[in-house]
């Protein structure tokens, strides 16, 4: 890994310090074509939802914590010199940190009960973004800047749980369930951002991504406590609806597939 980083850094320094006459050819070759990129980074929430229920806060805020993302697929088709359309898929894996926290919380809330889990829902993906929109290009010295504006959807994971609580020294049992109630699983999302790309090889570059995401998520947690003997239920609702804002930073690689081969041959 160190060797790869060393080669990339050396290559970047070499390219930056060398006036290469072939540069112009390569720049024009990157006008029209397909820009494919992949990267990894961090998503940082700019606002966090909170109610006064610690159990649901743990389950929901886990979706909003600082998290690693992976942009596995991103392709921009530059059909004009300075304009292209981009399609992007980005996801963040979920680590399940909320589960032991919720477990402790239940133990604190119900000290006179034995607890068991009849059900636990846990999605592997914490958050996914599927975006589509416009991308443009600005060349600044040896650096390319790709500003973009995309729209699409955000899908948040479903974290749900149910506990069976058996009273100590008693036949009484309860089931407490924490159900996520989402009216729109796919939240309409805006994304504005830009990438700084430096091509250290002919078609291969390193990118630094800066993105802002905004979406409205309508969601609440419904806590139902069922007395399993009488089947009486009590319900509480904790609302987490609101506008969510995220900032993300990423680093990765770009690859440009040029559609201007004929020009190169003429040159």
């Amino acid at each position, binding site marked *: 890994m160190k060797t790869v980083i060393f080669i990339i850094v050396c290559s970047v320094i070499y390219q930056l310090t060398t006036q290469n006459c072939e540069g112009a050819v390569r720049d024009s070759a990157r006008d029209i074509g397909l820009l494919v990129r992949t990267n990894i980074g961090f998503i940082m929430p700019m606002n966090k939802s909170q109610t006064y229920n610690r159990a649901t806060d743990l389950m929901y805020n886990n979706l909003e914590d600082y998290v690693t993302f992976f942009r596995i697929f991103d392709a921009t088709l530059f059909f004009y010199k300075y304009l292209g359309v981009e399609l992007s898929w980005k996801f963040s894996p979920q680590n399940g940190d909320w589960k032991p926290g919720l477990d402790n919380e239940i133990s604190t809330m119900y000290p006179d009960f034995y607890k068991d889990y*009849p*059900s*636990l829902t846990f999605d592997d993906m914490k958050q996914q973004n599927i975006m589509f929109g416009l991308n443009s290009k600005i060349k600044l010295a040896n650096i390319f800047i790709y500003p973009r504006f995309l729209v699409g959807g955000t899908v948040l994971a479903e974290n749900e749980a149910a506990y*069976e609580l058996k009273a100590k*020294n*008693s036949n009484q049992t309860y089931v407490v*369930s924490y159900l996520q109630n989402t009216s729109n699983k796919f939240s309409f999302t805006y994304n504005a951002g830009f990438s700084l790309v430096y091509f250290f090889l002919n078609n291969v570059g390193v990118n630094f991504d800066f993105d802002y995401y905004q979406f409205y998520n309508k969601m609440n947690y419904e806590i139902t406590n069922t007395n*399993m003997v009488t089947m009486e239920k009590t319900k509480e609702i904790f609302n987490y609806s609101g506008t969510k804002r995220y900032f993300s930073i990423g680093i990765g690689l770009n690859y440009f597939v040029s559609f201007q081969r004929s020009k190169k041959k003429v040159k």
Partner: protein
Amino acid sequence: MKKIINIFAGIVFFVLMQSFTCEEPCQIHEPMIYKYIAITTDNLDNNKEYQIVSETNIIYSKAYGIRLTLYTDIHDSVLGYKKDYCYDFSADDSIRVIKIFTLNDFDSEHPKDSEISEFFRFLDYSEVPEFASNVNRRSVRTYLPIKDYSEIIKQESKTFIRKKIEDDFLLFKSPQNLQNHQFRIDIEFYKGRILSGTTPIVNFIE
């Protein structure tokens, strides 16, 4: 030649698939008739996570239950799920009703020999309805009125048969006097037969 090999390979594949997927058809037998021959009753202690048969018979009044064990005369070799056999199982007589009596004064309204079935519930297990679509779901304790027991055991015996059937009945009302209690379970069958069992003496604690 290549065509012949392909056809031959196809036949071999088909035969192999058949041998893996086809079940031997059942030969029809006479239904296997079994009989409930005896019952025993024990005091259950449910003060911990799961109920167990009490060894001391000193039990929290709110964590008391009775374990009913029904014995059938079915042969050991055919125990298990009905679908595993070609036999059809059938009880010679079905349970009509189950009743629980107190053999001591329970409270002012329920003196010695009163029926107190209403204070007990049959312990069953079922899935949490809210999570019916969840693949990780597991069953939780549910408590059914005793009057439903005869129907449940009838349904169960259609798919599963055992030599020894254990079921638990939990008490949801504490007696006024905590000392020296005994309970009797009567199982009445449609043909008029009654099987009875009496629990060991239990001393309740608050």
